[in-house]
């Protein structure tokens, strides 16, 4: 009976979404306050019903209700409870439900914190959020019902895909979705501004903390995904330019551009049209990401078995959202580029170049990701675009950003002081060159590693110099407002990330070897001894577990236990063993036994030495932190609506305020 209640809850949520999506917009158009007032209660009611449906599905998983098809497909009696909860979003239907739940979380937060927004504007924003919810609820109700029954009820279920049975998996999708869906807020603000016809600067300030928070979540989600791929897929890689990774990376790139464009629009009034366009693109790319993952049109580790109806639905939905918002944009976008004039040497120019690079990078990733589809449509044959395409273009596009980063905060709005910039360039340049020369001795002349050290020091010194300047020149309490701190943290994160990527890419040692028990292999000064394989078992798997003892200078560094697990339905899954460290990871994965009938004999093993690989995720986490800290700035809290309504173009200016 309860699963039917879940279905009913979804239908009720759908009806409330229609109320939330349609009535407030009509109210805002007609100036009808009663209709506008529908937005908040409808949003709250919708959230309650969606949460109810979600909890019913969780309940069904926890209680092994295999009469629900989705539960039977994705769990069984031996699956531990924490993975049964994670299984809720382990496949298509449930992950869509999670998407909608998170959309409701954002909408409720928006409804709660928008009481000080002008009434008409808030009604429009919430209305647009309602329209998005209509699309997704219709999708789940008409094509992907998670509560469909399976009768007669099987005694036991199938299994959750073993690659998803990992702690990282309980965490990665919800956080990633927080990011994806979070861009719907910036999108709703833009559409509301376009609908209103008057693109004031004020809406950008209201939208900024939401964009920063969404971007922070997306960063965390991508970091978690990358870490999960590293630990779970058993190849020791952290990024594969896989279509689905690209799908999350495109909104991230556009989101990063959007954060900076919003800064220009808010502080200087310029680039309004561009900011609007980026908001639309960030959310459209999030939708495209969902489409790419869920429709199975592209081959990927994430692709679920495809159902053409679903693909068509998302494609139509995507066309309506993107087409509709771009049409609205074409009709209503500000025709005259407003804003204060700026010099070539100014913060605006630097941010523009950065924006251009990030947007181009997103376009480049989009082209590479969709090219197989385009090739298919044009009958060019079955094409795939290899990682070297991205590996060549992406660093080239990011190089100008790395070059400009140290100057960012030193550049004044409007017209920058060339002397100060020269000084920064000189100091950061000398530091970078010195560190690069020292590093060259340690890395056996690996150019990539030397470049990584130089680039990272170049950025970090620029960031630290600016932090120092503020420390010296400003009184206590005004030195590091949250917005400034966030920016400095995120930029420092780029430096840490660059070190991690270039050092681990260039200095990693990878050996696939055949080892019999007792045999050694020395990698980067570490002596790996293979002590054989024995059988072991877990709650819902059995495994061949290897023992590898790692020694250095006669001292034991780690005893590692890589596994090759076999799950309920004979799915095989490699569990690598990682000995983590700040400066290096040791990574061991079992390949296969040389003789399938004798698992105690020789095995193929992957042995990796990965220096500085944790810095990649560390840098990502710093960027995430920057996004969140920025979002918390008190300046963004809405106050004095009346005063701002009277003087819409004045925004609080602070000396050297951050971008």
């Amino acid at each position, binding site marked *: 009976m309860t699963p039917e209640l879940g279905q009913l809850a979804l239908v009720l949520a759908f009806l409330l979404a229609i109320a939330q999506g349609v009535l407030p917009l009509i109210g805002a158009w007609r100036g009808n306050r009663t209709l506008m007032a529908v937005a908040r209660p409808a949003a709250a009611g919708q959230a309650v019903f969606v949460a109810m449906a979600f909890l019913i599905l969780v309940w069904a998983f926890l209680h092994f209700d295999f009469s629900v098809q989705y539960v039977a497909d994705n769990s069984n009696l031996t699956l531990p409870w924490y993975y049964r909860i994670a299984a809720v979003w382990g496949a298509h239907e449930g992950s869509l439900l999670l998407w909608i739940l998170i959309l409701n979380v954002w909408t409720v937060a928006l409804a709660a914190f928008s009481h000080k927004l002008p009434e008409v504007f808030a009604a429009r924003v919430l209305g647009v959020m309602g329209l998005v919810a209509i699309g997704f609820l219709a999708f789940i109700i008409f094509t992907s019902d998670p509560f469909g029954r399976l009768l007669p009820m099987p005694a036991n279920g199938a299994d959750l895909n073993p690659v998803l049975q990992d702690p990282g998996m309980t965490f990665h999708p919800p956080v990633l979705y927080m990011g994806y869906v979070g861009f719907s807020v910036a999108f709703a603000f833009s559409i509301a501004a376009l609908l209103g016809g008057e693109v004031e600067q004020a809406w950008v300030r209201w939208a900024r903390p939401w964009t920063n928070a969404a971007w922070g979540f997306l960063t965390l989600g991508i970091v978690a995904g990358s870490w999960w791929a590293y630990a779970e897929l058993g190849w020791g890689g952290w990024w594969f330019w896989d279509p689905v990774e690209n799908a999350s990376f495109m909104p991230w790139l556009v989101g990063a551009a959007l954060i900076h464009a919003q800064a220009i629009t808010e502080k200087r009034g310029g680039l309004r049209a561009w900011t609007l366009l980026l908001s639309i693109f960030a959310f459209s790319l999030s939708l495209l990401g969902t489409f790419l993952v869920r429709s199975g049109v592209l081959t990927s580790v994430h692709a679920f078995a495809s159902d053409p109806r679903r693909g068509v639905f998302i494609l139509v939905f995507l066309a309506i959202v993107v087409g509709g918002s771009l049409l609205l944009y074409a009709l209503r976008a500000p025709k005259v580029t407003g804003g204060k004039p700026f010099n070539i040497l100014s913060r605006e120019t630097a941010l523009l170049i950065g924006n251009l690079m990030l947007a181009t990078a997103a376009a480049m990733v989009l082209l590479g990701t969709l090219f197989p589809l385009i090739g298919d449509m044009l009958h060019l044959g079955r094409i795939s675009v290899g990682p070297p395409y991205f590996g060549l273009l992406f660093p080239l596009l990011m190089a100008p950003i790395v070059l400009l980063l140290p100057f960012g905060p030193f550049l004044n709005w409007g017209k920058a002081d060339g002397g100060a910039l020269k000084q920064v360039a000189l100091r950061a340049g000398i530091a970078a060159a010195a560190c690069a020369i020292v590093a060259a001795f340690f890395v056996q002349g690996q150019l990539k590693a030397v470049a990584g050290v130089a680039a990272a020091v170049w950025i970090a010194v620029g960031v630290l110099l600016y932090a120092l300047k503020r420390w010296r020149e400003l009184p206590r309490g005004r030195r590091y407002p949250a917005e400034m701190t966030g920016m400095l943290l995120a930029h420092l994160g780029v430096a840490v990330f660059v070190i991690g990527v270039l050092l681990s890419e260039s200095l990693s040692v990878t050996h696939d070897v*055949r080892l019999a028990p007792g045999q050694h292999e020395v990698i980067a000064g570490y002596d790996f001894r293979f002590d054989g394989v024995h059988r072991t078992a877990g709650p819902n798997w059995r495994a061949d577990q290897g023992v590898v003892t790692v020694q250095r200078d006669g001292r034991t560094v780690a005893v590692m236990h890589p596994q090759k697990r076999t799950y309920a339905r004979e799915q095989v899954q490699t569990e690598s063993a990682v000995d983590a460290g700040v400066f290096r990871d040791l990574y061991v994965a079992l*390949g296969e036994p040389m003789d399938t009938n004798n698992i105690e004999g020789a095995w193929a093993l992957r042995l990796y030495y990965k220096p500085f690989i944790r810095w990649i995720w560390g840098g990502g986490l710093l960027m995430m932190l920057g996004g969140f800290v920025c979002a918390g700035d008190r300046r963004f809290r809405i106050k004095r609506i009346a005063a701002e309504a009277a003087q819409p173009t004045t925004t609080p200016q602070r000396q050297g305020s951050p971008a």
Partner: protein
Amino acid sequence: MPMNPTRKRRLTIVAVVAIAAALAISLGVYALQQNMNYLFTPSQVQSGQATQYKTFRLGGMVKAGSIQRSKDTLQVTFTVVDAGSAMPVEYTGILPDLFRDNQSVIATGHMDGARFVATEVLAKHDETYMPKELKDAMAKAHAQEKVKEAAAQDKSP
């Protein structure tokens, strides 16, 4: 027409953007051309469709009983078949978890005489999933050859 500062600035911006766009597009096209990999099935390769490509991807099923490992290295050889043809493949390294008899695989590599030397081997991701591109390519090869599916099982390389 006199060049006032605003006009001059705009002109500079437009020029910079145009140059950057041209550069980005030409680099992008170059990189795409260098890194496009075509997928062929054994019968397409044997009918000569892959001769112009140095590196390509070979897709098909692993012929049952064809997997042979070397005694003392990581070298492994197996046969990839489609509806009409078979192709011996050589690979050195560790095969993916899901690699086994009668699985669909995609191998990236080049031809060395009549053998295909793979640098990367991917197996399908779960029991029900076959990459769409591989399914289509196999269906196409199947239609071209007009050979019964069963025949593929008996045909030796």
